[in-house]
């Protein structure tokens, strides 16, 4: 009968094995133990700390907090209530009540969700006393932002409710909580938000709160958010925004010795107070769909334009470095530059110096296209193949921070474009391309694309005579200067410092003798370059040309520069007409604290290019319709 004993034995064995396993799972193993988060007899209450304030470099308050109150609901705790009274207190309809309740129930019967967001302050006071009548509902205090100064919305960003995707990814956040969505608010979210506190409260069978769970031993205190100080100079920023009124474009001003961003203007912009609280959604949608103005677009970071004449400087520097030109080298300009054999292969030039030899200095301050076309051609053709030459050229250009993201702490950006040999090989697979094909690059008009911040950074590199710091907006966190290597270690360009001197002289002469004569400022030695970029837009696959853009880059003072600036005005005709004066006014304001040219200031404040923009839009629409 031994066989039957095996049966008894196996059954007992399995039974014991199971009981042992159960013992392990239920009594021993701690990771399966009940925790207050898992226990339905315990209410979890969060204590949200004050979000950190944001200051500018001179400790002027840019962003502060104001309290806001949400009504939260835990559906399964809700007991029959006087809905009529509740609805009239909240000023909502019965249908809305049912709709919101159903939504919360569908989300989860146990987890709190937002029933009604952001009560008005007056409403809160009155409601707070009566909340005990409505079981399952409670008021959650939160902080909304407050912007004492109507400026720099594109830099500061805004906060809003965290979305479900993020909640799944990051377990810190719960439904209804606020998180930085854009700008500095987003990049420095962890520093600003602090850490929320948790309180566990015991509940009895009837769901009545009877006191702290385990004497508060699981509770954690909130950690207040850290204040941050930006490198921004808000007075300069506001000044820039005023100068750019009724015009579109961007201004980026950097302190060359540190890479700190002094000013980041993008126009048109919006009042940051519009994206606060209950109105935020509505206002955001309105601005989002405003295709003509696009106030939410940060042009200083994202708008990609051909840089135009300022780019000539880079070609000059590369030319000197590659030793294809010397400061004494000269070229002739006969109203332009012939770059190919056909009659059409002629690049016009308006420098006005016809027939006399033009050296580097004059080439810069009169902005002669022919000079730089020659220089560029020599660079590309220095090497046995165009591909090699292009690669060399491209590497030089990229060392100025162009053609790629700057990897800084601003929440958006664009790469720009710096073509190289691979690019042209793709573009012209069956065509032997060379300097002539790409000659427009010499005057910043070809395939090269830059964003205003890239131009400003490039200007800072020139101001420093050969290196730059990644432009960044943060100066201090929690009153301590930042220690981030990426921002504090300089990045060298591939051009020797000695080559920068003749260039800087040339840039200085732009004001003394050249295209920006009319924008001189007494007492400050400014170095700069005007730029006029052609404005092409594609309508139904055709390239249509509109009014040129006005560009200007500058730094001052010439020796020991304190500010490097890039200004870009869409449809501004030519560099010295709008961008130049604005740039010099900004410089004057920053260095002297005030300007000595109130009439110029006034002209900039009042100047409007709205007609130009309307004209362009009209033509674009007409062309689009014609094709249909």
């Amino acid at each position: 009968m031994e066989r039957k004993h095996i049966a008894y034995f196996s059954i007992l064995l399995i039974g014991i094995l199971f009981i042992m396993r159960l013992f392990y799972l239920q009594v021993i193993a701690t990771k399966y133990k009940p925790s207050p988060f898992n226990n339905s007899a315990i209410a979890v209450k969060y204590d949200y700390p004050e979000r950190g304030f944001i200051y500018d470099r001179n400790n002027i308050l840019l962003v502060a907090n104001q309290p806001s109150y949400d009504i939260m609901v835990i559906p399964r705790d809700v007991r029959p209530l006087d809905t009529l009274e509740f609805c009239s207190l909240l000023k909502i309809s019965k249908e809305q009540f049912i709709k919101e309740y159903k939504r919360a129930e569908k989300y989860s019967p146990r987890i709190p969700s937002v029933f009604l967001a952001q009560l008005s302050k007056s409403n809160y006071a009155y409601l707070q006393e009566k909340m005990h009548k409505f079981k399952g509902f409670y008021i959650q205090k939160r902080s909304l932002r407050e912007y004492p100064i109507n400026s720099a919305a594109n830099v500061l960003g805004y906060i809003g409710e965290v979305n479900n995707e993020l909640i799944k990814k990051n377990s810190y956040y719960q439904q209804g909580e606020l998180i930085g969505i854009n700008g500095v608010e987003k990049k420095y979210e962890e520093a600003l938000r602090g850490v929320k506190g948790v309180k566990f409260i015991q509940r009895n069978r009837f769901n009545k709160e009877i006191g702290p769970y385990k004497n508060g031993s699981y509770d954690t205190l909130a950690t207040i958010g850290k204040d941050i100080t930006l490198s921004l100079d808000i007075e300069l920023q506001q000044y820039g925004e005023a100068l750019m009124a009724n015009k579109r474009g961007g201004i980026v001003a950097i302190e060359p010795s540190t890479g700190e961003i002094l000013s980041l203007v993008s126009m048109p912009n919006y009042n940051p107070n519009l994206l606060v609280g209950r109105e935020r959604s509505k206002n955001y949608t309105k601005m989002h769909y405003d295709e003509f103005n696009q106030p939410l677009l940060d042009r200083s970071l994202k708008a990609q334009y051909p840089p135009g004449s300022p780019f000539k400087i880079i070609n000059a520097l590369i030319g000197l470095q590659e030793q294809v030109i010397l400061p004494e080298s000269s070229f002739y300009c006969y109203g332009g530059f012939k770059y190919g054999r056909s009659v059409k292969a002629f690049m016009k030039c308006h420098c006005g110096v016809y027939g006399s030899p033009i050296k580097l200095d004059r080439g810069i301050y009169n902005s002669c296209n022919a000079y730089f076309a020659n220089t560029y051609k020599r660079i590309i053709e220095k090497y046995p193949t165009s591909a090699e030459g292009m690669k060399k050229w491209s590497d030089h250009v990229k060392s100025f921070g162009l053609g790629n993201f700057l990897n800084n702490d601003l929440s958006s950006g664009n790469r720009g474009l710096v073509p190289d040999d691979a690019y042209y090989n793709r573009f012209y697979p069956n065509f032997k391309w060379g300097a002539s094909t790409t000659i427009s690059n010499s005057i910043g008009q070809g395939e090269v694309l830059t964003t205003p911040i890239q131009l400003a950074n490039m200007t800072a590199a020139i101001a420093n005579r050969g290196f730059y710091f990644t432009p960044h907006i943060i100066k201090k966190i929690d009153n301590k200067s930042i220690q981030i290597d990426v921002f504090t270690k300089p990045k060298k360009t591939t051009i020797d410092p000695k080559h920068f001197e003749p260039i800087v002289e040339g840039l200085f002469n732009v004001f003394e003798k050249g295209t920006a004569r009319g924008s001189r400022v007494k007492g400050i030695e400014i170095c700069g370059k005007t730029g006029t970029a052609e404005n092409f837009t594609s309508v139904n696959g055709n390239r249509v040309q509109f009014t040129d853009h006005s560009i200007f880059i500058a730094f001052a003072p010439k020796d020991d520069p304190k500010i490097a600036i890039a200004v870009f005005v869409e449809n501004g005709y030519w560099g010295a007409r709008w961008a130049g004066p604005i740039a010099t006014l900004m410089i004057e304001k920053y260095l002297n604290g005030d300007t000595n040219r109130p009439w110029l200031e006034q002209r900039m404040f009042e100047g409007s290019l709205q007609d130009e923009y309307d004209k362009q839009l009209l033509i674009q629409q007409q062309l689009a319709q014609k094709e249909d």
Partner: protein
Amino acid sequence: MRKRKTNIFAGIDWILVLFYIVLVFFGWVNIYSTTVGQNDTSIFDFSTLAGKHLQKMIFGFALIIIILSIDSKFYERFAGIIYITTLVLLVGLFIFGSNINGATSWYNFGGISLQPSEFAKAGTVLALANFINDPVKDLSNLKSQLNAFLIVLLPAILIVLQPDAGSALIYFSLLVVLYREGLPAYYLVISFMAIILFILTLYVGFTVSLLIIYAILTLFFVYIINFKKFPFKREWYKIAALYFFIGLFVFSVDYVYNNVFEQRHRDRFSILLGKTTDTKGIGYNTHQSMLTIGSGGLTGKGFLEGDRTQGNFVPEQHTDYIFSTVGEEWGFLGSSAVIIIFVAFLLRLIQMAERQKSTFSRVFGYSTAAIFFFHFMINIGMVIGLLPTIGIPLPFFSYGGSSLWGFTILLFIFIRLDADRTYEW
């Protein structure tokens, strides 16, 4: 001539009936907690799953009366026909059955769903018992062995084809019954070693596993030859064959695992063997189940107070994972108690099977015990994380008419047979 019984309840083993009632009732209590929970509905609301299960329990009681009323001889006489009928029902699935969740396992007619594989268990047991009962058949000769295997394998294969490999697994429990009835031990030993090899190969892979086995075998033979002076010289080809077949087996395991098993099967094994941890995807069920059980602690959270159960954290909680509710709400004490009751139930079954005078009843009893045991072992093993996810119900606890009735029929036919054990056939 035997006297006709007037009382269908005479001779019934009330202990077993008590076990049945306790298990079914407690099972229903847990189904109630899982499906209705804290919602404010009446206990007897028939539109809830708990209410539906109550209806099925009541119908089950009706079934009991019917089964007990039928003469024991009937079961023996009609064993073959019943078996064939269940096979037909299984085959018919491929024509008339509905495809749910990728498997054709159910008939759906007019609001009633039936799962033939649950009833096939009783049919197969009847046929097997009938077969072994025949004194001519002797399980030590090959022909009988093959016949017996066929009876068990036919329904198993039909179920695997649905596909529902989990339910088919149960039929291998009948191998143990065959052993009890005289099947040579080596079948069992080989099966057991095959399982070990199977797991080993999955864990360390084809080559390592083969190396280990060969090493062990070689050491074994060297030891035997040198120390026990066992003359293997004439038998060397048998040893070579052994090596060959083991190699073949290991290879086929590896092959089947990688080429026949689907990814989800492989994943389940990986998680079980600890090769990967995936608590969000394939391993989700098991992980949630263990968390739910673990959170019960020593005494459990109380009836209807298990927030993981109420929060619907464990998938399939009212069917395959019903035991996790027991764990969470009744704690270690409660869930151990259920284990103990099941163990006692099984031991009682075996004891009763041993005391049968007729081979038919004895085999039936053993088979019933084996089937219940396998369900119990695999289901609870899965729920507490010792076995991979294999979808089979926990007898009397899992929600569902077909499984409840299938088990009820199996059990009460045996109770009927046992009640008549004092009668000479």
